[in-house]
């Protein structure tokens, strides 16, 4: 059995022996993306399990081990991990945990520490926690994010964004229920098989795959009824995770709306761009800035591939990061970087500009950055775009679904009325 090794500050390390013996548990935020990340890590020789659990017990574990006023995502992620160790049929002495660490002035940077505190409280202090970060925050001998691995993960993210984007545009209209999800599954396993064979990991191959994926999705028979499109933005975890947002996308679908969920890529570019901005507005090394620019340029190029692929089809394509950055000028400064920072407002602007003025802005109750960039900007957006129809929904262990759904329903009722109004205007215009 692997020995427990600590660093000089007393942090339990994930050792090379552990890599052989331990199963690493990974919380889930985006089913498609994270499924692919998992597979890529397995190819690197890690034993990784992704947690798909979704039940009340997770929240109870979280409430028990995490300060109850801490943000909801921390409570859920930590609750999910501890619940899995206790009830998931694992040998608790042979598991390790993955958790992401973003760095930055938001409380989220503290998740890893809160997780360790929680493990200690639960008598599980012997379980190593592996930080997944791009800031070089914590290092472990048994795990490293090498450059080739990072590159693969970026591809995984691009595929994830494209698949989810296409699926979201087909699912509400599919004639045979389940077609879209079957296609998603098909492509996920197909991509994973090709990763295993070492294919699909160059821009050229990715572009070809993009075209093939979209062509396949286009074959799914769909109806041509008109549906209200609803944008979903917010704090990254509750925006994406069905566990965090009480299955928001399913609810929107059941209400006859088409959810439009901006992808993960912009968030990644945003986080890299922030480092560049820091040098611009506060001073710093140009080398650092240059490095960030190159890294960012690479992902942006991949994003442009994705947009180009979508533009060739009947699907709507998202805008570029650059385009969004332009839209947000005059609303928030580039320096607004904690949490989702200006990106959140940028996403709302992009949605409005692309004909999706109906938006659910999700946040954990009491989310600090969202006071500013979410709720704080809705007034201004309403002034500038009177047809914008944004509802802010708080998520926390105490918020009930019924309360949230009622507010979303109000937004949907407004959306339908607005659509009617717009149509009325068009008709009047036609008469003249």
């Amino acid at each position: 059995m692997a020995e427990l090794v600590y660093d000089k500050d007393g942090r339990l390390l994930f050792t090379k022996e552990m890599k052989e013996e331990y199963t690493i548990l990974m919380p889930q935020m985006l089913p498609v993306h994270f499924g692919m990340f998992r597979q890529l890590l397995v190819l690197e020789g890690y034993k990784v399990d992704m947690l798909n659990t979704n039940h009340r017990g997770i929240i109870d574990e979280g409430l028990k081990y995490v300060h109850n006023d801490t943000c909801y995502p921390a409570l859920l992620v930590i609750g999910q991990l501890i619940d899995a160790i206790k009830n998931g049929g694992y040998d608790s002495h042979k598991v390790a945990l993955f958790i992401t660490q973003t760095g930055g002035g938001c409380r989220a940077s503290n998740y890893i520490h809160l997780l360790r505190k929680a493990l200690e409280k639960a008598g599980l202090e012997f379980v190593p926690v592996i930080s997944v970060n791009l800031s070089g925050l914590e290092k472990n001998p048994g795990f490293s994010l090498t450059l080739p691995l990072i590159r693969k993960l970026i591809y995984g993210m691009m595929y994830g964004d494209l698949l989810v984007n296409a699926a979201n545009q087909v699912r509400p209209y599919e004639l045979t229920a389940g077609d879209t999800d079957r296609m998603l599954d098909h492509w996920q396993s197909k991509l994973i098989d090709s990763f295993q064979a070492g294919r699909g990991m160059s821009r050229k191959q990715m572009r070809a795959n993009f075209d093939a994926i979209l062509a396949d999705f286009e074959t799914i028979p769909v109806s041509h009824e008109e549906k209200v499109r609803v944008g979903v933005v917010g704090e990254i975890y509750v925006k994406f995770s069905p566990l965090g947002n009480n299955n928001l996308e399913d609810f929107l679908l059941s209400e006859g709306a088409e959810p439009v969920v901006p992808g993960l890529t912009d968030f990644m570019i945003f986080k890299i761009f922030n480092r560049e901005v820091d040098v611009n507005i506060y001073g710093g090394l140009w080398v650092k800035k240059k490095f960030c620019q190159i890294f960012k340029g690479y992902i942006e190029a991949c994003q442009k591939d994705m947009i180009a692929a979508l533009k060739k089809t009947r699907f709507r394509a998202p805008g570029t990061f650059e385009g969004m950055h332009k839209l947000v000028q005059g609303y928030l400064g580039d320096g607004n970087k904690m949490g989702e920072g200006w990106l959140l407002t940028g996403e709302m602007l992009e949605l409005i500009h692309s004909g999706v003025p109906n938006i659910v802005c999700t946040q954990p109750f009491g989310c600090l950055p969202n006071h500013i960039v979410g709720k704080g900007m809705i007034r201004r957006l309403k002034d500038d775009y009177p047809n914008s129809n944004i509802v802010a929904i708080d998520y926390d262990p105490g918020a009930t679904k019924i309360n949230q759904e009622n507010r979303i329903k109000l937004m949907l009722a407004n959306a339908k009325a607005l659509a009617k109004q717009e149509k009325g205007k068009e008709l009047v215009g036609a008469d003249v």
Partner: protein
Amino acid sequence: MILRVGIDIGSTTVKVVVMDEDNKLLFRSYERHYSKARERACETLRSIEDMLSGKDVRLVVTGSAGLGVAKAAGLDFVQEVYATAAAVNTYIPDTDAVIELGGEDAKIIFFGGALEERMNGSCAGGTGAFIDQMATLMNVTVNELDELSLKHEKIYPIASRCGVFAKSDIQPILNQGGRKEDVAASIFQAVVDQTVAGLTQGRELKGKLVFLGGPLHFLMGLRERFVDTLQLDEAHAIFPEDGDCFAAMGAALCASDYEARPFDDLLRLLEESRGATSVVDTMPPLFENQADYDAFTARHNASTPPQLDINTYVGNAYLGIDSGSTTAKIVLIAPDGGLLYTYYHSNLGNPVALVLEQLKEIYKLCGDRIKIRGSAVTGYGEDLIKNAFSCDLGLVETVAHYRAAAHFNPDVDFIIDIGGQDMKCFKIRNGAVDSIMLNEACSSGCGSFIETFAKALGYDIADFAKLGLFTQKPVNLGSRCTVFMNSSVKQAQKDGASVEDISAGLSISIVKNAIYKVIRAASADDLGRHIVVQGGTFHNDAVLRAFEQELGRDVTRPTIAGIMGAFGAALAARDLKLERSTLLSESALQSFSHSAKPVACNLCTNHCSLTVNTFDGGRRFISGNRCSRPLGKEKVELPDLYRYKYEKLRAMEGKGFGNGSRGRIGLPFGLNMYENLPFWFELFTRLNFEVVLSPESSRKLYIKGQRTIPSDTVCYPAKLLHGHVEALVDAGVDAIFYPCMSYNFDEKSSDNNYNCPVVAYYPELLAANMPDLKKTRFLNPYAGLHRPRDYERIGSQWFADTFGIPRKEAVNAIRAAYQAYDRYKEDVHHTGQQYIDEARKKGLPIIVLAGRPYHIDPEINHGINDLITSFGFVLISEDAVAFHESYAPRKVLNQWTFQARMYNAARYVCEQSDMQLVQLVSFGCGTDAITGDEMRSILEQGGKLYTQLKIDDISNLGAVKIRIRSLMAAMEERRRHDN
């Protein structure tokens, strides 16, 4: 002709209307449903079967509880705000805005231009249910509350954000003798403030306003508050005749868009959808069977004091009074602790009258046989009762409870007391009270909470609690604050949970709230081996059982659990060993009189709301004060670094050494400006600007900017900024400067040097939400003061671009500004040291009051610094001692500069025998969810006590006093133990 039916199922009522084709009402009803919404709706429909049976109708359901009903029954549904808007459009077409209050919702709809609708968020209790709760609290009906309010003379400030907060504001006012009439009006005012502040969010309420919903329909006092606050005349404040049914009428109007169906089919659908249970989230039962329950009761009934007969007993006796927040408890004991007399009753909002009546009764029973040799009082109303009846001793609740618990279990190491309004938990270590935990105002899942639910469901509390004992599937309601709990219960009911399941679920949720939220324990061992539980709420067997189940450990509940405070006070009175008691004699009680008058103190900027109680014989008691000045005593000024810093910063205004020729620059005095002002003042005056500070914070200033606050859950220090900035606009400055700062100064004592997101970016929020800022020049550049060399370059460029100031001049000014900031810091360190030396010379204890720099604002800390020094402490701020410690790894990511100071201050305090630390936490502060636990562990590992004071826009100094006095008592015990 096809009739249209609208059914509005709200959280507490069902409204049904029937409408003909000319939009005329043929039928309307408004009824409470006591959580049996579906049944109620069916009954109403059946009552009008004559009119509708055999016909096709268009029927649409609306309302917050209607969604579930409609879904289950397969009926058409429209959202209620949307329905209301439709009704207003039809009946009152030239409306500018609608304010609608319902049972648990508050809504504003703006017409004109784009339709804009707002609903209260999930944390907002200023609604009908809130008014119900407040009426329960004051022991009047809602109608009586309304009548009372119309006779008010003054309005007390009451927290308007959340019902639970308001409760803890009202309680002290009542207990200290505030007039019910004034409190009633203040409750309505709180609802108005809540609605206006929480929902307008920058859009002004003007023009013709329509008021709808049950509360606004029935409560004249509430109408009056709205009309007064919004300064409306009759033409602009419309209260329509059917204002309570507008949403239902709207639903009927919207029904035109839906298919007509046979009425009898619809009624059948609604009836058949009843009773479909789908509650998945249930928990194990409390008791499997009667035998379990019997064994349980027998075990707990063993802890009981001897019962003596007051009618035959001869000898000495001791009186203990616990004037609690909602109840009064009185005991009379013999020297061995035997009970002669006990009394437990709701204080009916007037504790003095109640105690008076009881004392008369006790004297009568005592006759000449029993002599009262000592009397002591504890609880919220301690001061009032002590002064009213000349009791011998007043003692803080925690100490009283410990005395009582130790009487039953001398080894007790953990006590938890859940009363009507508050929850107290504390550990006992080496015979001294250690580590005190009180519930925060936002999570008071206490006795009155379950009582309010019982009443709402139409039960008496005792019966309600028993209901849950044997249910096989208690519903899991989680652990959360009352306001949230309402909607959880609503959801459980929707899912078909029975009253029994809910009763048990509520008991369990109280326990979970106590263990996980208040105590923050993960296991029984975090509490202790010998746990004594007390407080009225533990008389509830369901709560007691749930507590034992959750901990997996048996605990002691004395049979007198509800009167332990009074019992402890009586024991303390006994231990005074007095020859004679000062308690008012039987004859003195005959001429007892009491009147209470509200007064605003004008002796300083705190403007405390005082209540002057006058008793017969000229005895007076003033409450609500923070310092001793209104009592006619000279204020004892012990060194107070909060005051020192505040005065020093306030003085940084004007032209300094410059000539002011470049114009007047306004600096809002809030958030990080409390730290950076020395820097900016020097910088701007050096550049020949005149610095204009926004006025001192006050509630008035807060209200001034309140309507532009977009997020009602942000902290109070941030909310105040709106008023500050508006005041600067009014002052006509040439520009307002308020920079964004992601980074704070790097003090090399933490992993990173961030500001919290709110501090960092609030200027951008102000720019987007304050229309007034268009009238001035608002400058909010990103400033990186943490890199002095770079800032010289970048900052001077900014001044060149913005004001055309020569680079060289700006560089020099920036250099001078850094020096000025360093001087300020050194001065704080130096003065802090002086104060410490002074305290040591005089042998005074020192409290380090640790918070953020802006916590020195008297409007934010509500004069807590005055209160602390009035108890004989010298007060130092965290930044005056933090610098003694250098970087050390923490168990959390130590990434915020201000917060890092608190950790280091705590570490320093651990090394000083005469210092204790008290942490100030603003409600809604996200970072303190992280620092709180860390501070506690630093201090407890260092052998210190951890005390946290939560503060918000309203102060509940009662709770603060309990904590500080408990801290003092604990320090005292420790000292005794050490000697």
